[in-house]
């Protein structure tokens, strides 16, 4: 029964992500345009907000190209496994006080673990394309995503340590405003590592269009390509939601329906910052990326953990 509910909530998560991706793309185009002193989409709907309604049918009707030399079954279905885990991870988000779609005692672990399946799917789709650039992109993505799991998990661990529970609802309950300055380093590390997890700029080395065309999804087109894009925006939405819930106190300072609104506003703000960062900073180099993860982020996350550990007995 739980499994069925979980499945249903997964479907709901997919829907949220699909809609969110549509709005997210429109919003990103607006943000990028203003940074480049343009207006962005403005012809379809108010402020061009219906632009993606025009773009989705375009993607649906595009020819679905499968390369001759590709490993066809894997090539066809790998995009589903890129998108699926992201959607599934949405079910443990504590949307309002006392309610999450799936209220499980290992929710935080679930959120960190399930989207990691995406790494395998990306590697598969890259390998199945039978294309040097794609393979290279896939390997880069794997190295990057696995590496950044470490500081990201350590950063979340600081919050878990404070709350004394892996259940997201418990964490939200236990959250106090002074956690924000106390765990600010953890929040920054989580935020940076999440951007790397989504393969977004300035960490979009696996896609690196100037060197790898589009990296692991270079050979994809139409709706299959769109599922990679949705996974990217889905990752953005879920990571922002999770970050807003755990680090920024979910609905705080409001409760009830206003609390849900507050969570959504915080999420949108975080997503906007992600876009702002992407359109500001140039792409990193692969070795810089790795040394930043292992030499800066991971030690910093451990320092944060020690700080929390030292403070904990006095709380």
């Amino acid at each position, binding site marked *: 029964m739980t499994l069925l509910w979980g499945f249903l909530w997964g479907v709901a998560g997919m829907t949220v992500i699909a809609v969110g991706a549509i709005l997210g793309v429109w919003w990103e185009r607006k943000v990028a345009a203003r940074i480049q*002193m343009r207006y962005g989409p403005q012809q379809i709907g108010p402020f061009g907000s219906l632009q993606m309604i025009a773009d989705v049918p375009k993607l649906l009707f595009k020819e679905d190209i499968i390369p001759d030399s590709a490993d066809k079954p894997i090539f066809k279905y790998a995009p589903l496994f890129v998108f699926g885990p992201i959607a599934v991870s949405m079910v443990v988000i504590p949307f309002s006080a006392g309610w999450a779609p799936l209220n499980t005692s290992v929710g935080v672990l679930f959120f960190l673990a399930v989207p990691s399946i995406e790494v395998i799917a990306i590697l598969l789709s890259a390998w199945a394309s039978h294309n040097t650039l794609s393979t290279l992109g896939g390997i880069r993505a794997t190295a990057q995503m696995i590496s950044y799991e470490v500081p990201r998990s350590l950063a979340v661990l600081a919050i878990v340590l404070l709350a004394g529970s892996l259940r997201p609802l418990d964490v939200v309950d236990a959250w106090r405003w002074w956690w924000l300055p106390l765990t600010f380093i953890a929040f920054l590390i989580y935020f940076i590592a999440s951007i790397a997890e989504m393969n977004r700029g300035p960490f979009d080395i696996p896609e690196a269009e100037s060197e790898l065309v589009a990296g692991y999804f270079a050979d994809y087109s139409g709706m299959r390509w769109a599922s990679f894009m949705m996974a990217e925006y889905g990752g953005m939405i879920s990571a922002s939601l999770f970050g807003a819930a755990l680090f920024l106190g979910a609905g705080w300072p409001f409760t009830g329906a206003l609390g849900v609104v507050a969570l959504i506003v915080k999420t949108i703000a975080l997503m906007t910052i992600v876009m702002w960062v992407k359109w500001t900073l140039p792409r990193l180099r692969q070795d810089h990326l790795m040394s930043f993860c292992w030499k800066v982020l991971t030690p910093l996350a451990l320092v944060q953990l020690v700080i929390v550990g030292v403070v904990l007995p006095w709380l």
Partner: protein
Amino acid sequence: MAVERDDIITPASVSNEYSPGVKGFLEGVRSLVTGLGITARISTEKPVTICYPAEKWSVSPRWRGALRLRGVLGRDEIPLIRDASELYNSVIEDLYKAERLPPCVGNCPANVDARGQGFLIAEDRIPEAYELVRDRNILPGVLGRICHHPCESACRRNYYDEPVAIRPLHRFAYEEFQKVAAERLKPLPVTQDKSVAVVGSGPSGLTAAYDLMKHGYRVVMYEREERPGGALGSGVPAYRLPRDILYKEIDGLVALGIELHCGVEIGKSMPLAALQREHAAVLLAVGLQESRILPIPGHDAEGVAGALEFLWAANNKGETGVRGKKVFVIGGGNVAVDVARCALRTGATEVRLASLESTEELPAHPWEIEEALDEGVIATCSVGPEEVLTQDGHVTGMRVRECLSVFDETGRFSPKFGTGLSDFECDVVVFSIGQAAKLDTLIAGTELLVSGRGQLVVDGTHFTTSVDGVFACGEVVTGPGSAIGSIATGHEVATSMIRYLQGNSLTDNRTPRPVPVYSKYAVADVTGVERSRLRSVMPMSRPEDRAKDFRPVELGLTHQEAMIEAARCLRCQSEICVGCTFCARTCPDYAIQVERVDEPGGRCLTRYDLDLTKCAFCGLCAEQCPTNALTHTGQYELSFFHRDLMVFDKGEMLRSGEGTRATGRDGITPPRCSAPKRREL
């Protein structure tokens, strides 16, 4: 063997060099914050693109092209450089600073507007062209035959094929002007009550007189010889400048109002002090009258002559007494070449030119030397005169010593001689090693100062002498030089005199004559260049015929040749496209198509198409544009509704580069070409 390499410089963006430890971390954080701050600030500014739908109805989403034309032949007129002489220097200076000064004008000592001349001749407004040139170059018909044309060496056309024949066009304009001279030469009105005396009727004196007359002063000119012209009449060989041309052109200036008195030698017939009393200002433009002769053994023997006396005899009497004799000319300058060629024409059997300089260093103009060698002059270079060999007081030969080098390391004149001596048999030796002024009779009884070397004490910028109200210009100030250089000093002294006569300071707010520097052009490769693009060839008399008498060597351009030549002018720096097609020829992608018509009066650019589908934005076309008409707009992002719009025609190219987007083709029509006016040539 080890190969030498430059050090490889790693760009900062790919370098692993960053500050260690916390410092580097903080630097990184600071640069992150700076970057985010920049984008945040920019995103709050008003976008520079079009805001739909408000502007949609009036503006289509087309970017401007990457290139545009500032002006175009057929629509815009070439600005003529023309102003009063006291303002002219600042006009030239301003144009030069704004990079709008044509190189021919900048390189001319008198800054004659050769571009304007080319424009007016091509438009068939030839008398206007003559008058434009005469403003700065007092005797275009004369200088059109004898000038050493620094304009042509600076001509941008040197870079493409061959320079425009600016000097022959002066001559052509003069010949055409003679047809309408009677109606256009009217005395200039005398509006001032002061008068000016000019001593000497050479080019510099005439220039100053004309500038003063244009300001309404009465000018009285005195000439020692029976005919006016100064060095032009006595020194310049008649085969280059027929004397009737010289006298006729000076008559034209007399018709403008100069009171010319010939045969009056100031200091002998009339004292200079009388002129000072009678006139508000006196100008000494007496030039150089004496040849210098080296005091070597035998220099006083019979048969030794100075260049000026020799040329005077050749030009005015047609006889120098060298018929059947061997002539030895000492000197390597233009005067020496003139002497050698005149000696041939007056019947010398052999003419030898001996110069101190080596063949490459000869100070004479290469074309002069070439013509002289064509006629049979023998050149002996790198020798210095040692002794004139004499027998019973008559010249029998010349002994010369080899010369190793003429100039020292710093470029000063300091000849070094070797030990080798050689003798040449000859009957006449002509020294052509320079000239000196003869001032003693002129300045007798005045307070004018003369320097230890016998030269008048003159300020080299304002041309004032040691006596108030007495000015000097021309070669008496500058030393031996070119005719156009003398004319330039005439303009300067006129500026000084006008300021003096009006009671103003000579120095306040005065712009010194600008001296732009132009790099020399390498000889262009003209293989494969169409005949129609090359310079009109000046018809010449045959060397074997012309060496025998004083017939003109250059025969002049025909009307048609001159019109074609004037149309070759690129109108440099005018910012008006003349359809020279060099942009189209330069374009590596063949993106530009240019067509024009060259009919006099209907000259027009009929087509200028820029195909932006081919354009790679390399900018080579704008780089080499001689007129600076073709410029970058800075708009390299392009989008169009359909492909036809990607070809920019003449109208599109002429649109202003302001703003970020333009209005598509709506409302833009290229300027039309007027029908050429047919004219019988």
